[in-house]
């Protein structure tokens, strides 16, 4: 068994530098790598390019990095919950590349899987396809999209083991599995780190080969963006 455990978030983020490209898992605030983001804030790493479906909210998630102006460029599909983001974008301080959500996921998966490029129908005929090759297959038009390139992927899982195997809970899975192995180094933070052998090999969502470093985070905030409920009876 190849051991991937590191003792702390500090050790897990060794090697991060200004100007790097990071992938960050999560959908909204669900399943985001809270500890890695906090450490990036603490380290003051700047000029970051972030590949992340969303940009957090003003005071949580990637919003924390936006507040400190650490992000140079965002590659996302939806950024609508963040006023500071919108301000920086409209003023031109922040570069933004909006990408259809399914294309974003697949550009990660392509990087993970050694595919340089793929054809997708999403965005054909829109400004997303501008400057890109388009092509017809079986009477339908498609856009050629290329795999992402990133230095680090920061993901968050529910459980993980020493071998780097990951299991997610509910919709906190989202982009996290697609980003594992899609960057040069994948750092996984988990709520519960268990010994190798404690997880059922049939039930691993991400095999450890896609993860280089794993650590257990504590006191996850897991903030809810839209608390929608119904009354009992």
């Amino acid at each position, binding site marked *: 068994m190849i051991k991937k455990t590191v003792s702390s978030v500090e050790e897990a983020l060794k090697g991060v530098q200004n100007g790097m490209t990071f992938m960050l898992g999560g959908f909204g605030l669900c399943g985001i790598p809270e500890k890695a983001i906090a450490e990036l804030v603490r380290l003051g790493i700047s000029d970051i390019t972030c590949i992340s479906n969303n940009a957090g909210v003003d005071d949580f998630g990637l919003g924390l990095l936006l507040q400190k102006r650490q992000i140079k460029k965002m590659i996302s*599909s939806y950024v609508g919950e963040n006023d500071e983001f919108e301000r920086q974008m409209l003023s031109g301080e922040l570069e*933004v590349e909006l990408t259809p959500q*399914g*294309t974003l*996921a697949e550009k990660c998966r392509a990087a993970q899987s050694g595919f340089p490029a793929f054809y997708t129908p*999403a965005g054909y005929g829109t400004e*997303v396809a501008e400057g890109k090759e388009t092509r017809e297959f079986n009477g339908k038009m498609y856009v050629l999209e290329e795999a992402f390139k990133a230095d680090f992927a920061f993901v968050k899982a529910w459980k993980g083991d020493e071998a780097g195997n990951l299991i997610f809970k509910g919709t906190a899975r989202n982009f996290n599995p697609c980003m594992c192995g899609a960057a040069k180094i994948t750092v996984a933070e988990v709520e519960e780190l268990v010994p190798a052998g404690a997880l059922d090999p049939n039930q691993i*969502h991400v095999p450890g080969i896609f993860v280089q470093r794993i650590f257990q985070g504590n006191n996850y905030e897991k903030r809810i963006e*839209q608390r929608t409920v119904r009354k009992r009876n």
Partner: protein
Amino acid sequence: MLDKNGIAKRIAQEVKDGYYVNLGIGIPTLVANFVRDDISVEFQSENGVLGMGPFPFEGDEDADVINAGKQTITTLPGASFFDSATSFSMIRGQHVDLTILGAMEVAENGDIANWKIPGKMVKGMGGAMDLVASAEHIIVAMMHTNRSGQSKLLKKCSLPLTGVQCVKKIVTNLAVLEVGPKGFVLLERAPGVSVEEIKDATEGNLIVNGEIPEMRID
């Protein structure tokens, strides 16, 4: 004239037995409340869940179980969770039968714009571009006119497009319309709304064939 719930009620009639349905944010989300309970339908949310149920009871919210609108939800028996790539395999691979989403503008050729107002509002397309480029059945749920009273059913979209020639049906507060080869075909009027009123509120080519029935909403 319909309110948002009325639009959702009318759209719910388009949901057929055995359909997997993706609901966008806003009015589309309300559709789930009005689907007949004698048919089998499963709701997919592109953030990675199939078999969504109603909102949780107070105190049962789980931060790890949300829909694409970031709302806390529950799941029903037979539900599954999956990653984003798999979610869009369902969408792009046309396994999701019906997509219901909102729009800022729809053109008479089926073009749709709903993600960007240049220089003003840029929230992003989320999953909408994948959904409209892939779904076989796309229904737009929206008000017939915008807040300034201008038509949202146009000859040509003025805003950046989300997808081309993809919208099949539109349900607004005034009418049900189909996108035909020559423009918007009026199918039904909202209760109390005249064909004239719909004509006035529609900038794109409106095709009125014979008597137009009033919609039936129970």
